[in-house]
């Protein structure tokens, strides 16, 4: 168990830490959203979703997910 304890604290968890730092640094400059182009193959609505008004996906985020008619905000 000693080997795996060492691997956990010296390799695995610091590895996670480095990746966390990397994500934090990269997230600093990421805030423009693409323009809305009403492509036919995107935002498909063959049938309403069984929740809400039937037009929003389960993880709908009004800031980055446009509806078939465009961004809401």
């Amino acid at each position, binding site marked *: *168990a000693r*080997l*795996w*304890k060492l*691997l*956990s604290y010296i*390799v*695995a*968890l610091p*590895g*996670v830490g*480095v*990746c*966390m730092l*990397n*994500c934090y640094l*990269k*997230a600093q400059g990421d805030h423009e*959203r*693409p323009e809305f*182009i009403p*492509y*036919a*193959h*995107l*935002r*498909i*609505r063959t049938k309403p979703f*069984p929740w809400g008004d039937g037009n929003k*996906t*389960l*993880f*709908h*985020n009004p800031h*980055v*997910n446009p509806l078939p008619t465009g961004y809401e905000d």
Partner: protein
Amino acid sequence: MAHQAHSYHMVDPSPWPIFGAAAGLLTTSGLITWFHYNSSTLLTLGLLSMLLVMLQWWRDVVRESTFQGHHTPTVQKGLRYGMILFITSEAFFFLGFFWAFFHSSLVPTPELGGQWPPAGIKPLNPLEVPLLNTAILLASGVTVTWAHHSITEGNRKQAIHALTLTILLGFYFTALQAMEYYEAPFSIADSVYGSTFFVATGFHGLHVIIGSSFLSVCLLRLIKFHFTSNHHFGFEAAAWYWHFVDVIWLFLYMTIYWWGS
């Protein structure tokens, strides 16, 4: 008083299998009424009964094994085969979704703009949160191995530490994925890209939640002294399942996140 002349476990009659089947029927028909007739009653009943059956069936297995001693080495061997076969069937399940992904991404149709990712899709950067998630799952594979060795060596304190760390890493992965799902600029309805992405990663996430739950039950049992240093198959099964979840993620990461971007 008659005793059995073999090392197998002839299980007492139990209502859980048929109740489980009934729960399956309620859940599947519940999905239909939810999708087509706007009613979620059957579905709620189905999921609730499924949960109750699982809790009670597995509680009975713990009673039969840990408290009543029915799990001889022969019985354990059978359980090992069973878990291996189950995980193999899950591997085939995911294989289908990988097939679907490659079917659509290797020959992108004109409707998608003849390219992959399709026109208008901005894929997630594989070197940001997805890479962190990879590190998290790999780290949890190391910590669960640490836990296993600690159990075999009879080191209770370290086993509890290591298993707790594993579970925390699992929760961290799930939380990050949920955040990614919310922040993604594309949705499940965005062409076959969205379909393959969210169905494959979605089922994977479900399996992470299942694996984390299994490990949590093991932690509870570990704390309650259910495991011995050479008989702890419940933990081994959970650890195998967890490694499987990790491997599936590695394939997802290399194919959908990295090659597919």
